[in-house]
């Protein structure tokens, strides 16, 4: 029997068209990313200097450096992680290891997922109401860190949960079969295996926290504060907010534009470095877990 040749050719043609368009679209995505990066690097690179990274802003933020914003972002990231990491990891352990599949478990998961979908400005408002006003922390590192921590909590919970889920049950059963309690099995078998992926989740959420503007807007960020904080009840400048300020409402928006790009570049470099660190650490820990 003869096979009709025409449809065969059509099939090949369809393949070619489909793959070419997929390819072009994925290139387009890379191109956009590349353009953004290129623009920021191109415009920001010239202002980057040791002085830019270590000096206070001067002359209505049109000259000088961004040191207090870098330090502020560092403190906020650190504070939010101290808050969100233990709570998130422990919650995830509870959800994944202790609760059986039930209405209750689905309810908790639905709630944590919904939490992840709330716009960050709403977190900012909530943080202002609860931490700044009701609890009386004022505009402070503490209030900002807690707000950012809340924002990132669902991310920590979800990545930890995924990390725990990826640990094969045969390890748990092996532990139980040797007379280990549930807690011992989680601590000595499950967590060490899941650890590299949990850490990756943590570091990725650091990347997110360091770039968030809305949650710190009403809780901690200072418009202009050319000194370093002396405690957790002080206000700080932060990189994303500083970028917003000098691009929209600075003393001289046009003149401070290079500084805006420089700030953006620093922010992007921090996020990039954190991501690279996450991957390196995961690979290193992944090897180490197998060894121990």
């Amino acid at each position, binding site marked *: 029997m003869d096979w009709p040749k025409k449809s065969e050719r059509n099939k090949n043609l369809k393949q070619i068209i489909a793959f070419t368009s997929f390819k072009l679209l994925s290139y387009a995505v890379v191109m956009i990313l590349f353009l953004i990066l290129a623009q920021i690097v191109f415009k920001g690179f010239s202002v980057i200097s040791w002085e830019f990274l270590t000096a206070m802003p001067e002359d209505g933020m049109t000259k000088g450096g961004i040191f207090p914003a870098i330090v502020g972002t560092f403190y906020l990231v650190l504070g939010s992680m101290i808050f969100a990491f233990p709570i998130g990891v422990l919650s995830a352990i509870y959800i994944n290891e202790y609760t*059986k599949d039930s209405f209750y478990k689905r309810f908790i998961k639905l709630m944590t997922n919904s939490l992840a979908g709330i716009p960050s400005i709403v977190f900012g408002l909530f943080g202002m109401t609860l931490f700044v006003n009701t609890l009386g922390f004022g505009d402070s590192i503490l209030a900002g860190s807690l707000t950012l921590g809340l924002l990132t909590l669902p991310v920590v919970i979800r990545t930890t949960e995924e990390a725990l889920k990826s640990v094969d049950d045969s390890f748990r059963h*092996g*532990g139980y*079969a040797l*007379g*280990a309690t549930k807690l011992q099995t989680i601590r*000595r078998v499950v967590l060490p295996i899941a650890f590299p992926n949990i850490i990756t989740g943590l570091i990725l959420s650091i990347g997110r926290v360091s770039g968030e503007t809305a949650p710190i807007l009403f809780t901690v960020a200072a418009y202009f504060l050319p000194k370093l904080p002396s405690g957790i009840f002080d206000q700080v400048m932060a990189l994303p907010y500083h970028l917003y300020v000098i691009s929209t409402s600075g003393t001289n928006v046009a003149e401070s534009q290079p500084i805006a790009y420089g700030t953006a570049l620093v922010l992007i470099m921090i996020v990039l470095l954190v991501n690279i660190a996450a991957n390196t650490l995961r690979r290193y820990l992944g090897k180490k877990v197998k*060894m121990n």
Partner: protein
Amino acid sequence: MNHIIATEKLNLFYNDFHALKDINMKMRANTVTALIGPSGCGKSTYLRLFNRMNDLIDGVKITGDVRVEGKDIYEKNTDVVDLRRKVGMVFQKPNPFPKTIFENVAYGLRVNGINDNGFIKDKVEQSLVQSALWDEVKDKMNKSAFELSGGQQQRLCIARALAIEPSIILMDEPASALDPISTAKIEELIYELKQNYTIVIVTHNMQQAARVSDHTAFFYLGELIEYGETKEIFTNPKDKKTQNYITGRFG
């Protein structure tokens, strides 16, 4: 009390599914009992009764008596952790922990509260000798257990189970994922271990059941069809279904 394991009128349900039906069976100490039968017949479920691994599955209900060393292990105040120390288990797929060879064997001791490093070291060596793995691993105790071959990993899991001195060892198709040479080693090992332990083994391999066991139980659709001396079952089965199964006509 001669029978170290006994079940009486044992019924097990997975939600509505009646997985084990009225099983009456007794096993003597220092014997090897093989559980055979087609997939889904309930033999693995039956094996997992004795260290209560079925507890980990949702919706399992049990009626009847399961006695280990004379004690009803499904009584309310049974210490499951303690039970699992006495009743060790080796799984189908070798499942060493992502730790060193040494730490794998030491794990059971550590979780049971033993901190004496000298004792742990001796016990690890003794267990590895018993599981016929010592000569192959004595120079690389600090290497990852994942560097061992599948057969070696399975013997490591056996050593891990032996270290906490159980009296009973449950084996759930321990050689089904292994090559013939490793399988032969495991079978030899079972023969050796019989001196000191009671072994219950689930297997799909008829020759293996015939080679390693003293008694054989044939399960079919949740029922215990026939149970007796292995020689008897394989040369002169009383039930037609047993005969059909061991001669490979179904299953």
